[in-house]
């Protein structure tokens, strides 16, 4: 029976959802040893869904440091004879995973969409191609959060990490939190964008921004309304504004002129709401609603809030 080391991450409320999901995946591949690294993480660590949890808790581990963390993971792996290391595809996971793989001399698969004992699936070319693999040797993998069922709650033993924590010349001096509601367009996963169909600047504030907030999305705009002065240029999506590649681009009251399309056609999914059935945006949208946005947007927001 093979052993899998699962690197779990904590957040304010305990273990991150994605780590619990990966724990569920790991359980299908062998015996799971959970590993949580940080400072004052013992309580949260015990919630990790793994048969055994190793906790590396130290003052010097408060902030993520690839040199220290990778070394700890390698030591745990070597001590436990594990043949796989899994973690969530978070900013830490995607950073730590490759370094661990290099240290162990193992293969690496990052940002996997699917993972099981049958094999792994990764997105290539910005998701335009799905790449399947069935690795036979030992492997490190970071796995995207998805609709995986979360692992069963922990029911095993706890152990404190007893190995060596190396020194590192990296020194974290602070963490800056970015306020909610000002998500950067080029980094957003979801963008709610408004156009001339909104008819007035007030409607941007009453319809687009609240919907974006509900969806945890960034708010964007077409050139027409930026030119009209309804929103600042930083909101503009399109040829002369920003090029965006979110998972979901929701175009509201935007006709879809070629200059705008050039800025968002790289979106994974596009949904559009527009009263003109001939609007060019519908040719590129995956999902479209032909209708009055003044009726549809409030309904959409209410229903999303209830989810």
């Amino acid at each position, binding site marked *: 029976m093979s052993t899998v080391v699962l690197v779990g991450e904590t957040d304010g409320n305990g273990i991150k959802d994605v780590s619990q999901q990966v724990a569920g995946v790991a359980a299908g591949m062998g015996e799971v040893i959970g590993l949580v690294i940080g400072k004052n993480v013992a309580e949260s660590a015990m919630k990790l869904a793994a048969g055994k949890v190793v906790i590396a808790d130290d003052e010097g581990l408060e902030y993520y440091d690839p040199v220290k963390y990778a070394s700890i993971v390698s030591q745990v792996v070597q001590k436990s004879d594990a043949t796989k290391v899994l973690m969530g595809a978070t900013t830490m996971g995607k950073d730590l995973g490759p370094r661990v793989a290099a240290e162990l001399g193992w293969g690496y698969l990052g940002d996997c969409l699917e993972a099981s004992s049958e094999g792994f699936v990764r997105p290539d070319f910005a998701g335009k191609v799905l790449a399947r693999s069935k690795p036979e040797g030992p492997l490190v993998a970071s796995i995207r959060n998805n609709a995986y069922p979360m692992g069963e709650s922990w029911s095993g033993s706890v152990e404190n990490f007893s190995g060596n924590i190396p020194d590192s010349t990296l020194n974290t001096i602070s963490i800056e939190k970015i306020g909610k509601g000002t998500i950067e367009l080029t980094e957003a996963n979801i963008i709610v964008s408004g156009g001339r169909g909104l008819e007035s600047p007030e409607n941007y504030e009453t319809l687009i921004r609240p919907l974006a907030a509900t969806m945890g999305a960034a708010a964007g705009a077409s050139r027409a309304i930026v030119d*009209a*002065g309804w929103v600042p240029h930083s909101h503009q999506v399109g*040829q*002369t504004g920003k090029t965006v590649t979110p998972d979901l681009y929701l175009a509201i009251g935007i006709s879809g002129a*070629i200059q705008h399309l*050039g800025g968002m056609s790289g979106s994974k999914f596009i949904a559009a709401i527009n009263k003109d059935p001939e609007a*060019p945006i519908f040719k590129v949208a995956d999902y479209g609603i032909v209708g009055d946005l003044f009726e549809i947007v409030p309904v959409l927001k209410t229903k999303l809030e209830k989810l």
Partner: protein
Amino acid sequence: MNPFHDYYGIEWYLILLAWSAIALGSHFYQVGFVVRLIRLGKDDDRFNSWKQRLTEFLRDWLGQRKVVQDKVAGYAHALIFWGFLLLMSDIVDLGTGGLLQAFLSNIQLDGIWNLIVDLGYAMATIGILIALYRRIIIRPAKLKGASIEGPLILLAILGIVLTAFIVEAGNMIGEETKYNRWEPIGVLFAKQMDGMDHATIARMVDISYWIHMILIGGFLIEIPQTKHSHIIGTIPNVMFQDHEPMGTMIPLQTNENNEAVKTDDLDFDNLTLGVNKFADFTWRQLSDGWACTACARCQDVCPAYKSGKTLNPMQIVLDVKDYGREHSSLLLAGDEPKESIIDRFTPDAIWACTTCYACVEACPVHIEHVPKLTDARRHLVMEAADFPEELQNLFNNLERNSNPWGFGAHTRADWAEGLDLKIGEPAEYLFFVGCAGSFDDRNKKVSRATAKLLKEAGVDFSILGEMETCNGDPARRAGNEFLFQMLAETNVDNLNSVGTLKIITACPHCFHTIGKEYEKYGGKYEVYHHSQVLNKLRQEEKLKIRDFEDKVTFHDPCYLGRIGGETEAPRGALGGDLIEMERHGTNSFCCGGGGARIWMEEDADKRVNEIRAKEASKTGADCVAVGCPFCMTMMSDGLKSIGDDKQVKDISEIMLENLEAKT
């Protein structure tokens, strides 16, 4: 009586000699100074086609052809100009104390000569009075803020004329008064003066003579320094006008065969890219500065100026002159002033130009405004790497995907799906679709309509498909000559490999660039705008088209009408009764999309297309017909902005709608 006597013991001719020396000395010194400045410019060999140039000079300079396009100011000027040509010889007579008249009388020509001179003075007077009336009474809007210099100069010329008549009249009065019937206006003056006592008349004649000479001397001194320099400056400007087709830009370097030198072979150590220094201009670009009359006709037709942007084409031309004068000591010493030409023009003005060439078309003295701006753009793009951010996307997209929007080059022929067209095969014609027609949804419809009409008429044509790349116009007008050359060379290779000689295109920019500018890159083709082909097919009844029923107005594209010289074919192709906008044909007002401006930001209160949209709206037409994909986009946007839901359709779409099915 005459003024030819001594004054306080000094002979009149000595006083005149002294004054002439001062006036002529100053004049020639100033002219020499201007010539030295202009000679700082680079070579431009226009010393050819002498017969054509002489004809043009007589027609345009002497004949005032373009000047009289403005009826009031134009004819007023023509009268003053021709009048002066006729009266000019009078100065010889007055300056020599009557020797010319004496000489001519020996050969019986003095009578005719006197009549001609009087006629000249009369014409000038009428011209001046019209001009003064226009300036002081009519006060057209474009003269708002004009300096007092204008009326003063007119009054000064009037002074020259009146004093001449007084001297002329005085000559007829003496011991015996003898009216010279060859000088009818002189006679009129003489009759008025007749009653006065002779001492007063003598003084009037003396004073008039010297005022006359002082004014003329003053003019000689002033001419090279003010806008009057055009009196001399227009001579080389008109004589050496541009013989290349309008709107053609020139390659960075050409070889002996007048072909563009390949980018790899360019001699960068000895090549300046574009213009940033005074001496980067050619001599002919510099002489424009001194040919300008400040008539503001270019300003009046400029879409950038009209939309409130900082660009004023007249100011650009005058900037060349002013810059030269202000920095003359440094420039003539071969040094560089801290302020560059681009600093003087200002980047805002440089980027505001749509290259519509309305300014060049309007200019009576053949000034070439646009190349000064596109040359400045070349420097900004290729040397300084200082240009609007939006153009960076444009350049990257053109380079990587050979279209301005960055769509996958392999999707270029998708618009033709289902039409069963020949792709990449030899045929009689090649339909060069262009980027908008290939990738922009609205314009794909135009490509389809055009293809359908051509098929219906049995025209044998093929398209290049994926091999087609952007013709390079946006790169070239934006100043990126390297990129343009790369695209041109690729297109020429592909066009030649398919054996093309005859090309049809629905885009006037392709029509212009491929038809007129590709020759220097090895591509000599017959290029037709689709309206030309469709018109011919309609006239030959290979396409049976009903006359349209809606009220339609046609917006002439700049690169087809004014720059391309084609205003008839679109109208013939459309048929029916068109409602014409006030500014149509070669006077068409730009939609604002040319000069790569369609990819640049525009302030909301300075929209060129809204101005044109309002003009179209005023016609009351239901539909605006266009013949260019840029116009299609800009007019549609413009109309929407002003809240007008008029339709905008291409010529081919209107024709297709009214196509009568074959029986």
